């Protein structure tokens, strides 16, 4: 694993001057991922906060070849780029080595882009797909996605007089990706940069399709104190809301184990989207939240043990 000193000697390929909100998690994720890839890289991006904020004509924050075509098809667009690369390589028309990365938000990945993601994974194009997961459609103004946690207030799952925010749990996308039989799947958070950087490096060198789900706080949609962006991702790990693991060739492995599992309320209380859960009438929902996290954690540990 490279040290921060080593990383800081690498060229930045997601550079300053982008227009993400101050303290946006996506900016940290993009920077860390691009620093971790120590190879020439072509990037594709799905429509969403990261894309719109980083490439407002005539200014682009991507100091590496980059393409955006639409919202639901980053994996498909990059699969075409990978096919082009392989074709031109085979014909001796290029000699340049390159790796390929696609970025999509949770909306562009869990929801509208799930089909193209699944297609590209099944076909086994050699790329790393990164979901920067801020758990809602932020670019269009904080609507629910299938990555939005239980009880969260969003503008399409608002907490109201009779409904307590989102009624459904988020889905386990990493497990869906593992079921594709791809060589590498992992979760990460920017607050544990060393874990993230190590995984990105493994992912781009795994020889096939790799998928990473990276928690990416949104100070506007969660909303939280912007200074806490990194801290809040570490808390998600410590509460087992966002466990850190990797799945190499189908084998689950925990890459970090919290010394002492913290209650979910530690994480929830920092974000206004969950504030209504602390009202007495929503006590059972809060309990359900904790239970579902406990269940998920137990299941994950079993998967890791049996591996």
């Amino acid at each position, binding site marked *: 694993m490279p040290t921060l000193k080593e990383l800081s000697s690498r060229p930045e390929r997601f550079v300053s001057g982008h227009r993400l909100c101050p303290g946006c998690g996506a900016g940290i994720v993009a920077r860390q991922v691009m620093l971790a890839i120590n190879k*020439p890289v*072509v990037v*594709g991006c799905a429509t969403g906060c990261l*894309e*719109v904020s980083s*490439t*407002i*004509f*005539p200014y*682009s924050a*991507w*100091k*590496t*070849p*980059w*393409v*955006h*075509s*639409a919202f*639901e*098809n980053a*994996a*498909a*667009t*990059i*699969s*075409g*780029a*990978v*096919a*082009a*690369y*392989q*074709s*031109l390589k*085979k*014909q001796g028309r*290029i000699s*340049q080595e*390159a790796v390929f990365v696609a970025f999509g938000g949770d909306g562009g990945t869990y929801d509208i882009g799930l*089909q*193209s993601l*699944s*297609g*590209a994974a*099944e*076909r086994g194009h050699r790329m790393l797909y990164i979901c920067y997961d801020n758990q809602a459609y932020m670019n269009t103004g904080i609507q629910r996605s299938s990555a939005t946690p239980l009880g969260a207030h969003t503008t399409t799952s608002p907490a109201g007089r009779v409904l307590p925010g989102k009624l459904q749990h988020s889905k386990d996308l990493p497990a869906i990706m593992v079921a594709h039989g791809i060589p590498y799947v992992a979760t990460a958070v920017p607050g544990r940069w060393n874990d993230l950087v190590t995984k990105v490096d493994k992912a781009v060198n795994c020889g096939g399709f790799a998928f990473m789900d990276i928690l990416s706080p949104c100070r506007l949609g969660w909303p939280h104190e912007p200074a806490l962006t990194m801290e809040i991702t570490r808390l998600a790990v410590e509460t087992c809301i966002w466990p850190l693991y990797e799945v190499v060739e189908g084998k689950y492995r925990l890459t970090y184990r919290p010394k002492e599992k913290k209650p979910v309320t530690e994480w929830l209380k920092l974000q206004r989207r969950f504030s209504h859960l602390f009202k007495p009438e929503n006590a059972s929902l809060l309990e359900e939240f904790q239970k579902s996290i406990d269940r998920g954690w137990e299941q994950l540990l079993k998967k890791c043990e049996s591996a």
Partner: protein
Amino acid sequence: MGQNGKKVAKTGNEAFAEAMRQINPDVVAAYPITPATEIVQIFSQFVADGAVKTEFVPAESEHSAMSACIGASACGARSMTGTSAQGLALMWEMLYIAAGLRLPIVMAVVNRALSAPINIHCDHSDTMGARDAGWIQIFSENVQEAYDNLIQAVRIAEHPEVRLPVMATTDGFILSHCLETMEMLSDEQVRQFIGPVPARENLLSSLENNRPITLGALDLQDYYFEHRRQVAEAMVKAGPVISGVAEEFGQRFGRTYGFVEPYRLDDAEVAVVVMGSTTGTAREVVDKLRSAGQKVGVLKIRVFRPFPVEEIVRTLSPLKAVGIMDRADGLNAFCGPLYPEISAALYDEASRPKLVDFIYGLGGRDVSPANIEEIFSDLLQVARTGKKNFNLKYTGVRE
């Protein structure tokens, strides 16, 4: 193959697939749909047999197939696909993006009716709906034209003054599944005619030169209009390029093509405008009516985008009555899609014919010589009286 440069019997789909083999694209990404499925199937076999150098992406949808073509083309790869109807509809979003990003993707489209009700047979509703997408559209009358059009499409799309995607079409089943005699060029002739992909800055070259580019940025109020204006200009520039490519094709291979193809129009008073495979039937009817002394003719439109305004004005303005045969409905309580464009083209002419729209052949409804004779008889009456009693007629529907 062993049949290069000679007469062969091919279906429209086989001819498209053979043209693709000879074009030998760097990337093909496609998804099956009747009646275009065979194009992908036959091409997959070429890949499996090592007959092409192509990387084939068997996409999980047409949306992804076009997205993959976009990604590949953005890397400087010659990229192709094929589809029909619902498949084209699913690509809709990406069609506009391919054109807006100025990617010279070439697509074989087999025209088929759009659902609902679901139907697998020919009409032009699918490509007509894509008429404002920024794609060059070339219609084919027969299998030979389909083959020739697809080969010319590569040169047109990649021309430095154009750089727009091109679709070449055939009528579903009528051409796609119909065996016709055609002349195939040799692999070498095609290779030489299309030449290598013209050099242009792309994602991979920008990686090699260490001058990375960003493609597909967000254009707000400040730049979108300028970039769309460029696309509009490319469509204007496509005109002479299409002519030049057709001329060179004619010189090399002896088959010449224009934007439109007039038939017995020189002294005609009445004509129909038609696209695709119906042209042949219309010509037969014209011959019959001519021998009965009627001054009738046909104008076939081969290139629908860019719209051949000059040719239309030149050939149609001297006439008395013109019937526009629209193989799609506009569902606008007025007319089909071809009618208003021809009307608009002629509007400013001092002398211009009366125009009547005939919507026909939806969902593969057969169009018989009798149907077309009926159209001519309506038109002859309009020519005689100088008046029309109706603006639109549905030809061949049970009343």
